């Protein structure tokens, strides 16, 4: 058995301890000291996670039993942390994004009375615990910790009513989701008498009855709320619109995607054996929800003029694309989804950082007010180029790494005969890229004029920084530049994909996961590369980019176009029923969760019945 090089629990305990210490001292420490300490603790966590990641890559997967409670026979009596490249990789990514976000907010983003830094550290601890744990109830605990920290971070700007409404909606929907998950856990516990995911999977075996189906429905839907899949997505734009930009980076970059990770994790660890003969129906259900998400997210993304809401809808759209990838099924799809997740998190993080710079310097975040404002910024060229690169990235066009994920997804879909996935990618990538490019053309190039607006954009947003200091410091550029350039760099460093593919093969293999949990030993599995799919993906990415650019141009220069060609302006006005769905009423949001649960559950009972 290979022990991890360092106790994996430290990836959770260090940021938690740091948060406790910072909270105790927050009344006496100056802002700069709090920032420096927060950054230091986050860096230490990054170091621990990266060490764990390297250890798991070099020595294979292992399990760390907290409190020394090794399993007795087949019963896990304690909580185990599963140390394999995917979980540790996600924890490392969480630490990286948190570090960047803390660097970006250095002495500049409003922090309450030094509340911000400890909350960020707790959020980080929750995300790494969520990624590492192998225990179902522990997953719920970290889900709640993540939620509570996120609710609080969301309400940081208390000077106006909108943030409180956004965070209230966020809090009530995600709390309902938490209890849906907990109900699912209770049902599974009743069926198996176990909480460890591997043990539940072992105990369920191939059992397939309404109880298992319903437990799967509850767990999956609960996590899909986090993942903002239609119709569970309504909280996300509100939460993003009101959260400070460094927090949005964490929300969109990782928190949402962790919901999908949890769906995949419980599927492969617990239910893979149960639904082995119903894969087709299962994938069809997930795929339908994903397709609806992509369509809605894409359309709404283009119809938004509040930058953060626009990026939020683009996150919904891409979350749908990732779920669609997952729905293709099999280890290859999982690997492709994770590759896409990483690249998307970087690109989206970069775009949010850039909008944070705009909000900081121009005191506004809506497209009409930002018109041509980008040109007046210092480093306008760099910022504009990064923004446009981000747009190119969302279309999954070269040279950004989203391309690799799209290639893998398409390859996996071919293997499982899933049709239409490439169309979804072209639509989702094209629409979100078009929206980002349109904003780029307006803001950084000053093209066109007479920008269309919408109601939500008119509320605007109070700046999160003090008005007297509007200077853009180098560290404001470092974070977005790092994100975007890193997303390009990993496209040309193929080594990590090979690791990811093999790790995904192990994660998607239930017997291998069982073996690792009970013996602590690695099961070496490999799967072939999808390199031959990359040129095709590049072609599709360029096509999406081209279509997106045309759409954006038709929006920007709509006055010079004949009326039938004004597709952009038409799309920009959006569709009334979709906008009406985004009512801001917490009752409506919870209603849609109920409807989604009923739909998902009925589909599962009907199409996957034993």
């Amino acid at each position, binding site marked *: 058995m290979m022990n991890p090089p360092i*106790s994996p*629990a*430290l990836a*959770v*305990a260090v940021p*938690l*301890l740091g*948060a*406790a*210490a910072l*909270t*105790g*001292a927050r*009344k006496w420490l100056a802002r700069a000291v709090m920032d420096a300490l927060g950054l230091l603790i986050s860096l230490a966590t990054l170091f621990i996670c990266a060490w764990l990641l390297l250890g798991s890559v070099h020595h294979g997967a292992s399990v760390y*039993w*907290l*409190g*020394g409670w090794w399993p*007795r026979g087949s*019963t896990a*009596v*304690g*909580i185990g942390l599963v140390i394999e490249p995917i979980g540790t990789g996600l924890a490392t990514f969480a630490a990286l994004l948190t570090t960047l976000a803390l660097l970006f907010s250095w002495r500049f983003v409003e922090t*309450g*009375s030094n*509340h911000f830094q*400890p*909350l960020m550290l*707790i959020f980080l601890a929750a995300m790494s*615990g969520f990624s590492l744990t192998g225990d179902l*109830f*522990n997953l719920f*605990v*970290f889900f709640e*910790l993540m939620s*509570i*920290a996120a*609710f*609080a971070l969301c*309400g940081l700007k208390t000077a106006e009513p909108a943030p*409180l409404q956004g965070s209230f909606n966020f809090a009530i929907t995600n709390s309902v989701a938490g209890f849906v998950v907990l109900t699912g856990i209770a*049902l599974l516990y*009743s*069926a198996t*008498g*176990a*909480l460890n995911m591997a043990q539940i999977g072992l105990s369920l075996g191939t059992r397939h009855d*309404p*109880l298992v*189906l*319903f437990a799967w*429905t509850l767990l999956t839907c609960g996590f899909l709320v986090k993942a903002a899949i239609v119709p569970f997505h309504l909280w996300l734009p509100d939460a993003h619109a009101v959260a400070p930009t460094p927090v949005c980076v964490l929300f969109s970059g990782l928190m949402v995607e962790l919901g999908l990770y949890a769906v995949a994790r419980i599927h492969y660890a617990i239910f893979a054996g149960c639904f082995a003969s119903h894969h087709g129906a299962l994938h069809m259900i997930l795929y339908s929800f994903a397709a609806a998400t992509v369509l809605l997210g894409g359309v709404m993304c283009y119809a938004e003029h509040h930058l953060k809401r626009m990026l939020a809808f683009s996150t919904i759209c891409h979350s749908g694309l990732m779920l669609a990838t997952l729905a293709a099924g099999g280890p290859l799809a999982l690997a492709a989804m994770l590759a896409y997740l990483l690249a998307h998190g970087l690109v989206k993080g970069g775009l949010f950082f850039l909008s944070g710079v705009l909000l900081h310097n121009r005191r506004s975040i809506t497209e009409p007010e930002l018109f041509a404002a980008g040109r007046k910024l210092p480093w306008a060229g760099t910022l504009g180029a990064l923004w446009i690169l981000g747009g190119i990235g969302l279309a999954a066009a070269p040279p950004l790494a989203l391309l690799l994920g799209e290639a893998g997804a398409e390859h996996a879909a071919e293997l499982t005969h899933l049709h239409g996935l490439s169309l979804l990618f072209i639509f989702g990538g094209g629409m979100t890229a078009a929206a980002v490019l349109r904003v780029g053309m307006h803001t950084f190039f000053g093209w066109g004029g007479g920008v269309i607006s919408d109601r939500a954009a008119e509320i605007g947003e109070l700046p999160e920084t003090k008005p007297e200091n509007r200077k853009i410091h180098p560290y404001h550029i470092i974070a977005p530049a790092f994100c975007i350039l890193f997303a390009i760099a990993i496209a040309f460093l193929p080594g990590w994909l090979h690791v990811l593919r093999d790790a995904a093969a192990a994660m998607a293999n239930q017997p291998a996961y069982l073996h690792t949990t009970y013996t602590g030993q690695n099961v070496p599995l490999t799967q072939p590369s999808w390199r031959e799919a990359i040129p095709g993906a590049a072609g599709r990415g360029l096509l999406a980019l081209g279509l997106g650019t045309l759409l954006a141009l038709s929006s920007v220069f709509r006055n010079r176009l004949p009326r039938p060609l004004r597709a952009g302006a038409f799309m920009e006005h959006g569709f009334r029923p979709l906008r009406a769905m985004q009512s801001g*009423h917490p009752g*409506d949001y919870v*209603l849609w969760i*109920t409807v989604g*649960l*009923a739909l998902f*559950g*009925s589909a599962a009972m009907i199409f996957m019945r034993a």
Partner: protein
Amino acid sequence: MSERARNTLFFVAGAVLLSLYFYAARNLAPWGDYRGPYGDIIARRAVYERHATDIVNAINYDYRAFDTLGEEFILFTAVLGVSMLLRREEDAPTKPADQLEDRFGLSDAVRSVNLPALLVTTVFGFYIGLHGQLTPGGGFQAGVILATGVVLVYVCENTETFRRITSHAAVEVTESAGAGAYALIGIASLFAGMPFLCNFLGLGKTGDVFSSGTIALISACVGVEVTAAFLLVVYTYLEEIVTGAVPED
């Protein structure tokens, strides 16, 4: 969405959901027929392994102590969030204590039971907290009870004392220390060469107040944290009222 449409849609979706649940629940084991194995294995061994007689606390503070670490920080985060949301605008003035009004108008007879009630509450709180590993109770319950004792001070109209106790910066420091100590106990077991949150202290004699090693220690930390956390929440909600801070409009 109109109210009518909302209600109709909810009744349809809710009915579907409830019938799905009832359909699924037919496959649950009949009520009262617990089949294990997790709970039975722990129940059979915890007394020998951990010298604790209250198995629930042995699970909370030992077998699944990592859950409880997360749980304590959920509490910690929420308190941080509440104090952040309801933080006072810095320049809001406060009124001197003698101008604060009598909010409850309790009679002297009621007030005279205050001190005994406070005493009983405190003693009960400590008892519950110290015997967590033996009998029902533990740090969490004790914390809430102790904090309730302080709230009694307020109810019985000693607003100034209440303010002095709860507004003290030490409350938050205590809370952080309690939460941090939990994480530190976990890390300490690493230095003892054991896995995180391992029970590395002597287990003592079953039935003793100081038995069961880190279970009692963690329980104490939780108690400290919960007491302070609850006081912080109560004070944050009451701050405007007890300080007479004038809201700005």
